């Protein structure tokens, strides 16, 4: 789970099947040579999925009887993946800025 906290630990994110599941690095089956781009798009789609799921569960909860724990879990998962994605996005942007400032 420590690996999951580090937003830059792409291997564990790509391999353990999700930051929110707190998987130990390498528990999944991703190859260590997964490309940066594929890991990023993986992250993005996972974020969207958890967000959609959270929204669906919440709508169901407002309309009727859903176990409160289910809603809490879905929303927390969504928030976790979103937080990681945002952190990555920020890092990428600052890295790009740094590169663009390098004297040629």
């Amino acid at each position, binding site marked *: 789970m420590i690996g999951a906290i580090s937003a830059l630990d792409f291997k564990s994110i790509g391999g353990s099947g999700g930051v929110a599941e707190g998987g130990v690095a390498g528990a999944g089956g991703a190859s260590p040579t997964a490309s940066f781009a594929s890991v990023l798009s993986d992250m993005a789609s996972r974020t969207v999925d958890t967000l959609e799921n959270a929204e669906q569960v*919440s709508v169901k*909860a*407002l*309309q009727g009887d859903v176990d409160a724990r289910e809603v809490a879990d879905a*929303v927390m998962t969504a928030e976790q993946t*979103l937080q990681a994605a*945002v952190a990555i996005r920020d890092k990428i942007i600052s890295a790009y800025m740094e590169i663009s400032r390098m004297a040629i």
Partner: protein
Amino acid sequence: MEPVNLFQLAAQQSRWLGVRQSAVAGNVANANTPGYGTVDVEPFEKVLDNTAASLKTTQAGHLRGRTTQSGFALSQEDSSKSLLPSENSVVLETEMLKAGEIRRQFELNTAIVKAFHRMIMLSSKG
């Protein structure tokens, strides 16, 4: 099915819960008023079904044709069904149960809204 806006749905439920709370308040305050019949709002599922149609039309069979300002139909129980000679049909325990339900749904509602608001703010930062 067209996508439901979460915030709109939550706002609608919040209004409905407010109306229900004031109905419960009226019942509790009038628990000893002769001839008073218990009032309740229509179920939220019915409100959702009616959302397409105009909310302000009253429905037949609702005593006094009362709708609240927000358009939810209220129904009043026939007070002659009560067991008391004063023809009051309010049962305090039932009203307290309703109040508990209202509270639980309201807490869930505000928690969901808060969480999604937080997520939107998070993704918009920087």
